[in-house]
């Protein structure tokens, strides 16, 4: 693990894989919960975990440099089920990229157990991993100016659900009515780093309206 100082009160911990980053994140949360890691923000990402707002970064820097990570992240506490209609405008392209039919592509996605690797882009947007590497897909060459809220989408190794309408270049494979982010709800975000996720296919009800 590389420990990179970031300004005066933050450390960026870099590991070599997404799995390691998730295991490291779980370990850091454990340390914060037991009181041995006073820090304002713990922000996991693709290959890193950022510790921001450390009162004295030198001590964790020394401790963490020699940290032996558990081989796998611990089991997530909870599973969020996301009902999804596999009706996205890019589903056929994704299926073609995978070399299977549309129906089979939906089944592959729905049979996968996902885990929120990290969040970003927008409040409540989770980067979900779980699909084997052979199912990586490129971003669309031309991003859409408006992706509807509730779109279930793929890019690279990740699946994501747009919590609100926004521009986006991900491949849209389906739609959910589940509200991923509601700041008036506790918790506001259904998905947080470490959450397990399953997509549950529901029958398309036909075009709304």
């Amino acid at each position: 693990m590389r420990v990179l100082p970031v300004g005066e009160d933050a450390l960026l911990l870099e590991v070599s894989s997404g799995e390691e980053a998730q295991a490291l994140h779980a370990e850091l949360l454990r340390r914060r919960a037991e009181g041995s890691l006073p820090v304002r923000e713990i922000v996991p990402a693709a290959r890193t975990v950022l510790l921001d707002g450390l009162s004295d970064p030198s001590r964790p820097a020394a401790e963490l440099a020699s940290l032996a990570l558990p081989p796998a992240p611990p089991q997530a506490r909870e599973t969020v089920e996301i009902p999804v209609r596999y009706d996205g405008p890019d589903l056929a392209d994704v299926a073609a990229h995978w070399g299977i039919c549309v129906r089979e592509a939906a089944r592959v996605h729905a049979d996968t157990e996902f885990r929120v690797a990290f969040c970003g882009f927008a409040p409540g947007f989770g980067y979900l991993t779980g699909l084997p590497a052979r199912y990586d897909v490129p971003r669309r060459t031309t991003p859409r100016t408006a992706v509807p809220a509730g779109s279930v989408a793929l890019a690279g190794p990740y699946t994501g659900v747009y919590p609100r309408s926004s521009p986006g270049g991900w491949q849209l494979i389906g739609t959910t009515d589940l509200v991923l982010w509601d700041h008036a709800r506790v918790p506001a975000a259904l998905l947080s780093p470490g959450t397990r996720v399953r997509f549950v296919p529901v029958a398309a009800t036909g075009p709304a309206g």
Partner: protein
Amino acid sequence: MTDRALAVVRAGALTTVQDRGRPGHAHLGVPRSGALDGPAAALANRLAGNPPDAAVLETTLDGCSLRPRSTVTVAVTGAPCPVTVDGRPAAWGAPVRVRAGSVLDVGAAVRGVRAYVAVSGGIAVEPVLGSRSTDLLSGLGPAPLTDGAVLPLGPPREGRARVDVAPQPAPPEELVLRVTPGPRDDWFTPDAVRLLTSRAYHVSPASNRIGLRTTGPALERARRDELPSEGMVLGAVQVPPDGTPVVFLADHPTTGGYPVIAVVHPVDLPAAAQARPGTPVRFVAVRRRRLSGG
């Protein structure tokens, strides 16, 4: 409608509600937000007799006009600007009594960018995740002010403010930003780090609450591959593909995929909030206080 309220007569170019922001939610993709010039906002609250976490208004260049529905104490700090009540000159940087129905006008900034208007009782819009700040990146918090809007005010604190005048730093003629290199300085040519800390940059007009954009020599990367998304901090000097550095301010994204060549010391960021487009920017490399370096 209660009379503890404030009618917006003239919203100005961009006036937002700000407090100390909502740190602690970066792992959910929620920016910290909050007043860009924190010390100026804190001073406005002290002058108006408010607790430090009360919400204030942050204006951009051309101020705003407000009509309180009950008599209030206000204070305007940050960018120096003319202040009037019903057209009569009033004090900037000091408590001002505004009677119910009178119009407080916060004029265009003479220098600097952002004025802070604290009103006794604080702006009492509904908090989101513990903060009333408008976050322009993610859209959390109240929308920017519009003409005719009405903002609720909280109950004023008993007793008078204990300060009635306080020194404030002048907006910078030249913005000096102390930086510590990294975490991704190794993604750039050695020349790039030297360029950043030796050449003149200028504040770009494209700057906003998300980032202070600059114009100046492009910084060349030593590697062309894509950096996987990683967590971003306040003050991060991120270098997008065009090579000109962007200093992340309060509404910055929580993760990003462009390498961060250096990080600005947080003490220097309030001055960045007051630097007008065209202001010269000098990045000065300093030694990290506690760490011995990467």
